[in-house]
Structures are given as structure tokens and as C-alpha cells.
């Protein structure tokens, strides 16, 4: 063991000959990844899968090129409709969900002092199921219209409203690819959620009561609980849609008395909690990263937990704010106005708590912190445009317009993707043993920030000027041309930024500065083991006395457990 007083070497650097990578052939290495049940490898596979589809999801670039000026004919309407459907579906199900599960997979056992997830084989099963679902969805591009009439990529929008998805209006099998790809992925998500909840409830190390576990663990616990409640309604609705399309049932068959609105209810009972499922992990990352780079404990730990629980519960009651234009009664509309605005309160509280954490601290502006500060700024704006959309009569103008697109890209890109980048810069050293380049990181950050704002700020205005979403072109004379052109220009910056990011990752994997156990001088258990951690995580399962076990070790005269 090394003799420093900072961190006891809980991870150990026990040399085992079999761990030496150079002794394995390339086949052995691939084989070990394919058959692994190790949460760290599976976590990394989830993240790599998600990042791969992030690049693919830049099919949005083609959308922006087509819309850069009025009446362009770069892409046919049929192709365009497939592009926006696949873009939305990809980003939610093949990028967002895998990456957040990947981080949960990797970090939760390390942060609670466990050696793996509760059910390692179920973990692998969940990953491969999710991966298969995504590949099945993308196979639809190849199973194209000409190929024995097998179908083509789905073109019904990512929320696939009925009866557009009925056999009569959606010929071929494109919609079936959408249903099956996502349903299979959904089973994978439920499996992983079950696994993570069980891990957190049953495998925390000694001394770590629920009130002493890191906020990341709490938020993943809550997020996975929401997955159990939220993904199932989508699975149920998709089973119903399959029965309609193949067995002749009438769930959403309006000709037989079925209801198009029922699909909307079922979808959004899934869809709204789903967006909170996607964003809560970004809260988790922020709650770990901001304290470290402010050199202060998180402000208001119990309130952060309580607020996240409140969000989880209230988010189950707001779904019909996606349906304000459907023609509900004024009482119905008003109920959802109130519930939607209510869910904004705990969300806002969290922003204040992160501010409170930074207040009075000593801020270090390494790349993870740059992304985190931008996250706070952009999530604030996203929340506020959300409040605007919660005003139902204004939503009657703004729903399904570019203002709505701006709002949800502010949450999903401006908040979630920014925090994913922050998390990667923060934990990449732990997973690989190398730091990412700060210089390239700053280029990545600034280019992405500028591009993001050029694109998505302008979208607010085209929406306010009456431009609806999901249109493959628009006529000159509506005043939307300049805004769309500017919007498209922003994409160039974002693409450049992502390219620099990929270069950074590839370069740093080999040539990055050695990270050591704890490059950021942080306080949670994952920093107590080596970088990368050995397969068993900790040589000796730790015991903790406070929320920041490494703070206690580094400050033996002033440990946290005296104040908590």
C-alpha cells in the first residue's frame, strides 16, 4: 500500500498477471467484452453504444440543411419524415437511455462500495436486449421499401400518434420496426432499473445508510423507480398497437369506435415521466461535479433528495400538458396547468441549491465545471420556457411549433448532453487512467456552446412567428427564411465540437496524462480505488461514516460526520 495520508488505498493495486492487456490477443479482448457481466465493462458498452448513436442521430443535420431556406428540394418529404422520426426516437431511446444507464451501471457500485450490481447476468441481458432493439430499429432503413416490400424506416413521428400508425395509414412494416425496436429496448430498461434499485437498496457498504449515500445514488434510485412506472405504459400501448395492426383489434381504430386520444394519454403517461428519467441523471452528475469544483459540500442534501422525490411523484400527474390542444374540458386543462407549474417548483429549488453550493466556494473552471455552469444557465432557461408552455392558452399557440422544439432541445441538449459531456470529462480518468486534454476540452466546450445557442435560440423565434414542427419545407413569404438559415449555421459549430471531442477521447486513451486515483481531489468512494479500478472494485469493502468519506480521510480534524 502507498504511504500517503490522503486516501487509503482501498482499491489496491494488486498485480495479477491476467490483467495485463498486452498478453491477450485481440480476440481474447473482444471476447472478454462480449461475455462480460462486470458492471464497469457493461457501463462502458452502454455509453459507447449511446455515443455511437449520438453521431448517427446527427441525421438532424440533414433536416437542417433541407430547412435552411424556403422551398428547398434537398430531401424528399418521405425521407424527411423518416429523418425526424428516427432522429427523435434515436436520441431518446438509443442515446439518452443507454448513456444514463451506462453511467449508473459504472458508478453506482463504486460509489456505494459494492463489487458489482445485484444481478450481473441480468445486467448483461439488459444491455444486449437494448442493443438488439436499437439495431432492429435501424435495420428498418435497409429493409427499405424496394426490398421485397419489407418496409422502411418509421415516419410517424417519435410519439407515433394513432390513427396515423394504423394499417390503413401506415402501410408496410416501418411502424412495426418502431414498435418492436423500442419495446425490446424497453424490456432492457426495466431489467436494468430492477437491477440498480436492488443494488442500491441491498448492497451499500457498512455505515452507508440511505441518508449517507451520494446524491448520484439517490437520483439513480429515484430515476429507476420512475422507469418501472413509466416504461410499462408505453409497452402496454405498443402491445395494443401491435394487436391492432396484426390481430385486427380496435384499440385505436377510430372507424370502430376506438379512440385516438387514448393512445395520446397512454403515450404521454410514459412520455412525460420519461423526460424526467432522462434529466434526473444530469441532476445527479451536477450534484457530484459542482461541489468538487466549488470545493464545498452540496448545499441542502436532504432538500435535494426531497425535491427529486417530489419531481418523481408530481411528474406522474402532468402528462396531459402535451395534449392541451386535443380538446379537453376547461377543467381538465386547468388541472394540468396547475400540476405542471407545481413540478417546476422542486426543479427550480435544485437550481438554487447548485447556486448555493457555488456560493462562497473556490471555483475551478476545468472542463467538467464549464459544462456544468452552462448546464445551470441552460436548464434555467429550459425550465422557464416550460413554464410558458404550461400556460395552456399560450400552449395553444406554441404547441407543435418550433418554440416547443427549442424548449425540449434546451432540456435534452442544453442540460442533458452538456452534463453528459461534463460527466465524461470528470469520470473518463477514473475509467481509463488517463485525463482528457483540457485544451481540446475547452475548444469542444466553447464551439458546442456557441453552436447550441445559435441553433436553438433562433428556434424560439421561428416558433413565435408561427412555424410548425415536422414540416419538410415552408413557403417564402412567412418570414421564416433568415431564422432557419441562422439555425442551420449553428449546426456546423456543434458538429465541429463533437468531432474535436471524439479526437480528444481517441487521443487521450493512449496519450492522455496519467490520472492517478483521484485527479480532481474529490470525496466519494470511486476516487478511493485505482484508475481504472480492478475488476473487484475494492480490495477491502470500505466502511463510511459520512456522505463524503474521502473528505473525512483528508480532513481528519474536521470530518463531515461531525456536522451532518
Amino acid at each position, binding site marked *: 500500500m502507498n504511504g500517503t495520508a490522503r486516501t487509503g488505498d482501498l482499491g489496491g493495486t494488486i498485480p495479477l498477471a491476467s490483467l495485463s492487456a498486452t498478453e491477450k490477443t485481440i480476440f481474447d479482448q473482444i471476447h472478454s467484452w462480449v461475455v462480460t457481466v462486470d458492471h464497469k465493462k457493461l457501463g462502458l458498452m452502454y455509453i459507447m453504444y449511446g455515443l455511437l448513436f449520438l453521431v448517427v442521430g446527427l441525421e438532424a443535420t440533414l433536416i437542417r440543411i433541407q430547412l435552411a431556406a424556403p422551398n428547398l428540394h434537398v430531401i424528399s418529404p418521405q425521407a424527411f419524415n423518416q429523418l425526424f422520426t428516427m432522429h427523435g426516437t434515436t436520441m431518446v431511446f438509443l442515446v439518452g437511455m443507454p448513456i444514463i444507464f451506462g453511467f449508473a451501471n459504472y458508478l453506482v457500485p463504486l460509489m456505494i462500495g459494492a463489487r458489482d450490481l445485484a444481478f450481473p447476468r441480468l445486467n448483461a441481458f439488459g444491455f444486449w436486449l437494448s442493443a438488439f432493439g436499437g439495431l432492429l430499429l435501424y435495420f428498418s432503413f435497409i429493409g427499405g421499401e424496394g426490398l421485397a416490400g419489407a418496409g422502411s424506416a418509421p415516419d410517424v413521428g417519435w410519439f407515433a400518434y394513432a390513427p396515423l400508425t394504423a394499417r390503413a395509414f401506415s402501410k408496410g412494416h416501418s411502424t412495426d420496426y418502431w414498435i418492436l425496436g423500442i419495446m425490446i429496448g424497453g424490456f432492457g430498461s426495466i431489467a436494468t432499473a430492477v437491477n440498480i434499485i436492488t443494488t442500491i437498496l441491498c448492497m451499500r457498504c457498512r455505515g452507508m445508510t440511505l441518508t449517507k449515500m451520494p446524491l448520484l445514488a439517490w437520483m439513480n434510485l429515484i430515476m429507476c423507480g420512475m422507469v418501472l412506472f413509466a416504461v410499462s405504459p408505453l409497452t402496454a400501448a405498443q402491445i395494443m398497437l401491435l394487436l391492432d395492426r396484426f390481430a385486427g383489434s380496435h384499440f385505436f381504430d377510430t372507424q370502430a369506435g376506438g379512440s385516438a386520444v387514448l393512445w395520446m394519454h397512454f403515450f404521454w403517461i410514459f412520455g412525460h415521466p420519461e423526460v424526467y428519467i432522462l434529466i434526473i441523471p444530469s441532476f445527479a452528475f451536477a450534484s457530484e461535479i459542482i461541489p468538487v469544483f466549488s470545493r464545498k459540500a452540496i448545499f*441542502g442534501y436532504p432538500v435535494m433528495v426531497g425535491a427529486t422525490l417530489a419531481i418523481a411523484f408530481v411528474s406522474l400527474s402532468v402528462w396531459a400538458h402535451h395534449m392541451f390542444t386535443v380538446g379537453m374540458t376547461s377543467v381538465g386543462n386547468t388541472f394540468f396547468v396547475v400540476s405542471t407549474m407545481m413540478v417546476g417548483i422542486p426543479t427550480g429549488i435544485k437550481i438554487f441549491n447548485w447556486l448555493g453550493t457555488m456560493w462562497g466556494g*473556490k471555483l475551478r473552471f476545468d472542463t467538467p465545471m464549464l459544462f456544468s455552469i452552462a448546464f445551470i444557465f441552460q436548464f434555467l432557461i429550459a425550465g422557464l420556457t416550460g*413554464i410558458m408552455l404550461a400556460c395552456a392558452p399560450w400552449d395553444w399557440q406554441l404547441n407543435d411549433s418550433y418554440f416547443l422544439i427549442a424548449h425540449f432541445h434546451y432540456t435534452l441538449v442544453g442540460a442533458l448532453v452538456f452534463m453528459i459531456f461534463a460527466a465524461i470529462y470528470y469520470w473518463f480518468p477514473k475509467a481509463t487512467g488517463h485525463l482528457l486534454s483540457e485544451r481540446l476540452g475547452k475548444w469542444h466546450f466553447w464551439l458546442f456552446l456557441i453552436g447550441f445557442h445559435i441553433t436553438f435560440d433562433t428556434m424560439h423565434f421561428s416558433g413565435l412567428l408561427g412555424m410548425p414542427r415536422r414540416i419538410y419545407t415552408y413557403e417564402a*413569404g412567412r418570414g421564416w427564411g433568415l431564422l432557419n438559415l441562422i439555425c442551420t449555421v449553428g449546426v456546423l459549430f456543434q458538429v465541429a465540437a463533437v468531432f474535436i471531442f471524439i479526437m480528444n477521447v481517441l487521443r487521450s486513451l493512449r496519450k492522455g496524462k496519467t490520472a492517478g486515483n483521484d485527479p480532481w481531489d474529490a470525496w466519494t468512494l470511486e476516487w478511493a480505488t485505482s484508475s481504472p479500478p480492478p475488476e473487484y472494485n475494492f480490495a477491502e469493502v470500505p466502511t463510511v461514516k459520512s456522505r463524503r468519506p474521502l473528505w473525512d480521510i483528508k480532513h481528519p480534524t474536521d470530518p463531515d460526520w461531525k456536522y451532518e
Partner: protein
Amino acid sequence: MQSQPSSRRCQRAEQLKASACSFLIPPWMLWLAMAVVLQQGVLAAERTNPALIPSTFAPESAPAHSISHLAGLALAITGAIFLVVAGLLIFAVIRFRRRANDDGTEPAQIYGSGPVEAAWTTVPFLIVIVLSLTTARVIQEVQDAHKPDTALDVQVIGHQWWWEFRYPKLGIVTANELHVPVSQATFLELRSADVVHSFWVPRLAGKIDLVPNKVNSMWIEPERPGLFLGQCGTYCGTQHALMLLRVYADTPEDFARWVKQQAEPSESNPSVTAGKWVFEQTACINCHAVGGTVADGRFGPDLTHLMSRDTLGSGALTNSPQALRAWIKAPDQFKPGVLMPAMNLSDSDLDQLVAYLATLK
């Protein structure tokens, strides 16, 4: 660490800045002027009439005004919140950054504060109450408005990808272009023949969906005569983008004249009998109706007064006999995926057909 502008590029930038200032024009003004000029230039290139831009902040009808006022309040509140919170964030980033001469000690660890948490929970809660009460009132004002006796009734039926308008009390059936009287309430009943659509004319009202198996209603009350642009607001299939709306608010005299003209059946004109024969013998009458003839198909738009409309194909083309000819020959070229097939008529048949249709004023 401040570094001197050593490169030539930096020096030139400094010179430019200096010269701009020497003319007493601040740089930000130059940027703003450039932005405005650029925007006006592009608008001019697009030949945009500002009165046609379907802006949600240019309300010209009572429901749109209600919405616009609510939007103003919401914007004011959220704007204030933004300024305060973003201001605090920017302040924190500057004030609490680690200085170059930092001694490496950790700052005071503050774990929370009950009173602070209570304060920043209570204030948002009060804001939410104010905003939701106001919103509830506007919902009621717009959605539950009492229908005056003088209101005009229109039935809107959404199809893939065109609009059917029926005036039940006036016996009029038309498509894609809605005529309503100015300064009078028009109450719309909305239905769909196939999938979900949405009726959206931003200057006149918020949007509402046309859902199959459901009847929705909304109302408008345009304040000035003129044309108001809109389009379908919910994805409804391949040509959702070209399901455009034109609402004409007419003065009472103009409206009366339009009603009279629309209520007349088509007149039989002997010089175009050949074209009428082509129309009735080909599959046209399976989908289209012409009042006063055998044609009564309901799948496509009613053509009785086709030439009284400004556009064809729900906004895909400007209407004229030449455009009509090109449309009938190959609708897919103007609206790919449209449900009207190319009829593969010979050129002479097509000419006769167009001559006939051109008489349907």
C-alpha cells in the same frame, strides 16, 4: 494573466476598434444595424409582406388577444426570474472563482440553511399560484366563451392533406380557403375524416386538433379585413407541410357577395361540354363533387367554385388555368405523396378538361 496583443491579427483588431470608436459609433450598434439590415434584406428577397407573417405576437382576433396578454404576463414573470437567477449565477462565477494567489485551503463548508430553503420554495410557490389563476381565467374566457346568436357556423373537416369547409346554414361547401365576416364571431366545429390534424392560424387564435371520432370547437373574430395565413399544426403524414390555410376576413358586403356566388350551382356552358364529358367519364367524379352535376365524390375537395380560390392543392400552387393543367397532369410533382393520382390523360383531353374546369368560378 494579461498578455500583450502580440500577433498582427490582434493589432489590426485593436485598430479597427479604435477607428470605430473614433467615429463615436459603439461597436454594438454596428452589429445591431448589420443584423437589422440583413434581416430586412432577406425578408425583401423572400418578398415577405409583414402583414402576412403568422406571428403569435400580432393578434388580430379576440382569442388571440387573450392569449397574447397572458403570454406577456408569463414572459414578464419568467423574464424577471431569469434576470435574477442568471444574474446571481454570473455574479457567483466571477466573485467566487479561485484566485491565482489561492492558498489551497478549502472554503467554509456550508451544508444547508433552513430559512434560505424555505424562502426559495415559498416565492416560486406564490408565483405559481398567481400564474395558474390567471391562466385558468384565460382558459375559461377562450374555451367557454358564450356563442352569440349572430355567430357564423362553419364545419371544418380535416383530410389528408386538405381542408373541407362547410357552411351548413348557407349551403356552401368549399376547400382550403375560409371566408369569414370581419368583426363578427365565427364558431368552428372541427372533425377529421382520417388522422389527427390541427387548425392553426396564429393571428386569429390558438390551435386546436381535429381528431377522428371527436368533435372539437373553437371561435375566431377577425378585427380587420384581409388575409390570414395558417397551416396544419400536427403531423398528419407525408404532406403535412403543404396542408396550408388561408382565412379571408371580408367586409360584410364582400362576404355577402362571396356567399351569393358560392351558393350558386355551376352553370352549364355549352362550349366546354367536351371537357365536362372528360371529367364525368374519367375517375374524377369518384373523388370530386361539382354542384348541379352528377359529380358528387367526397374524398377530394369540392370543385364547384374551383377558380374562385387563390391556390391549388391546399397552397401547393397559385391557381390559374396553366397551373391547374400542370397539377392535373402530375400532382406528385408539386406535392409528392399526394393522394390524387396522375390521371394520364392525353394532351387534348387535358386541354378540354382544363377549359371546363376554368369555367367553375
